[in-house]
């Protein structure tokens, strides 16, 4: 857990005092990622760097796991906080192994222990230890270097990590890969992380909490979904962008919205049964046909069922596309647009049909927050 209590930084400049961070108070629960987000010069980096005293706070306190860090020795404090910077900052004079082992060595670990730890970390970041440990940073690509940067920060297994735009200098394709890898690692590691970013999409993807900064002040501190649904003021709203409702699609999984009861027909049933079932369930256009393992194999269209006689197995169309339960809504919406469909069948990991998701359900979900707000506003009036 990281708690900032009225943390303030005033810089003395020739033009007078500048308040870079103004009474920042916030708390990041243990094991969560908090993204500090805002335009440049908004105080997010200053706030981050006050935690490990790269910048000395003018006033205010930092608590880590409930302990006031004010009295701690600076080096001691920093050795227990993982630190990743945008410029990566690997030491070019040291091999990868030496780079990763810097903090364990400072902490006085013995040789076999930090060597073993370096190999363990390399496996964690999916780089072959034997191939990379003896190389120098200049012999690695940017993406590999930043993976090593993360590994170095994790070396002594600190409970808390500070990351200053860690993936900002990496090309978009590699960045997405590293973000995914990092999130996967975080599921096991459960570090408490403060993460500076200026990229709203990165924030939504990575953050459990997002803190929006503006001109040295903390404007809003919420969970991503809450932030996108309920921006506090116009600044936050404009920062999130006009497509903020669409950005929420990233945050919702098919699992959350899929309707579970979906009527189906079997190949050996006849078309009249299919038509009746559509009427019973109020399906306007079509019905899914599944095999004996409940896997979707096709769609029977209403016009076909109305005009033809026979069995479903002879009169179905193939399913253009399906959604998986773990897909996010952004992918689903994209599939719907691509295939000109207003609903998609949902399948589980074994390919069994377990529901359907409709465009209506998606828009309803995205809109529900606003309707609640409007209802409240009207009630207040």
């Amino acid at each position, binding site marked *: 857990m990281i708690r900032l209590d009225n943390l303030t930084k005033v810089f003395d400049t020739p033009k007078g005092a500048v308040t870079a961070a103004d009474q920042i108070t916030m708390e990041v629960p243990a094991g969560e990622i908090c993204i500090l987000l805002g335009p440049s010069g908004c105080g997010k980096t200053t706030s981050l760097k006050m935690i490990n005293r790269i910048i000395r706070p003018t006033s205010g306190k930092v608590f880590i796991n409930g302990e006031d860090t004010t009295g701690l020795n600076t080096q001691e404090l*920093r*050795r227990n906080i993982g*630190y990743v910077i945008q*410029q990566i*900052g690997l030491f070019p*004079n040291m091999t990868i192994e030496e780079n990763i082992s*810097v903090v364990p060595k*400072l902490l006085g670990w013995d040789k076999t222990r930090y060597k073993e730890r370096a190999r363990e970390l390399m496996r964690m970041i999916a780089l072959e230890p034997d191939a990379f440990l003896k190389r120098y*940073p200049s012999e690695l690509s940017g993406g590999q270097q930043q993976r090593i940067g993360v590994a170095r920060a994790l070396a002594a297994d600190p409970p808390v990590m*500070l990351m200053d735009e860690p993936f900002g200098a990496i090309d978009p394709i590699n960045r997405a890969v590293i973000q995914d890898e990092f999130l996967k690692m975080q599921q096991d590691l459960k570090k408490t992380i403060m993460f500076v970013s200026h990229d709203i999409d990165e924030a939504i993807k990575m953050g459990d909490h997002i803190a929006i900064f503006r001109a040295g002040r903390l404007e809003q501190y919420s969970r991503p979904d809450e932030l996108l649904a309920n921006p506090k003021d116009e600044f936050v709203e404009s920062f999130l962008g006009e497509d903020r409702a669409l950005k929420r699609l990233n945050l919702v999984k098919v699992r959350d919205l899929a309707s579970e009861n979906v009527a189906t027909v079997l190949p050996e049933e006849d078309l009249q049964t299919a038509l009746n079932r559509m009427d019973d369930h109020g399906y306007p256009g079509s019905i899914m046909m599944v095999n004996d393992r409940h896997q979707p194999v096709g769609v029977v269209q209403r016009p076909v069922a109305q005009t033809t006689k026979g069995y479903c197995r002879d009169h179905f169309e193939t399913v253009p596309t399906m959604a998986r339960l773990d897909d996010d809504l952004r992918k689903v919406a994209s599939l719907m647009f691509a295939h000109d469909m207003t609903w998609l069948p949902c399948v589980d990991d074994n390919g069994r049909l377990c529901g359907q998701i409709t465009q209506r359900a998606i828009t309803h979900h995205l809109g529900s927050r606003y309707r609640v707000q409007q209802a409240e506003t009207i009630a207040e009036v």
Partner: protein
Amino acid sequence: MPLQNMRGALRLLLIIFVFVAGVWVQASGTIEELLFYLPDVKYLVGQHLWLTVMSGGLAILVAIPLGIVLSRPSMAHLAESVMQVLNVGTTIPTLAVLALSMSFLGIGTLPAVFGLFVATLLPITRNTYAGLKGVSPALREAASGIGMAPLQRLFKVELPNALYVIFAGIRTALTINVGTVPLAFLIGAGGLGELIFTGIDLYDPLMMLAGAIPTALLAISVDALIATTAFAVVPRGVNPSRA
């Protein structure tokens, strides 16, 4: 192909020229006359090297710590002024520096070592300072951020990364030093200058060459020695010649 033929022809010409020159030198008895100075040369090379080692060694011992101190953030306001003073020290011709130090310290080895020391100081200090200042701020922040104390940061990150530039300074300074030592003869410190200047005064070109050729060879050897040391000492990751 024409280029290769051209090169081959030039090489052949060069070999013929060297051979003819060798024959001529041998026939004229020049080599024997030069060899006549061999005992002198042996003695004077020792003296010459001793002056270089003393003045150069002292300069390294003073210049590197000075460069380190000046590069510390707390010294930022002083650094450029000190550098200017050292610059002036280098602008004054070495001969003048030697003459000045003679008028304070008298004749002999001491004023010579001092004069050479002053002339050698600046390139090393300048390169140490520039090398350390050139270490990327990101590296310094990373080093501090992961919990290195200031001295640990200096020795584990800043110096290793500046080492190549520092060595370049030492190399320049010592090579110039070896080439300057002959002047020390003028204030009574000996060295190969003894043969060079006496040769000039006596209109004896062979005597002068007996001093000048070993001086040149010494300068080249010192340069090669330091280059080799740098190659071995500077870590591979920051060593352009080992990339």
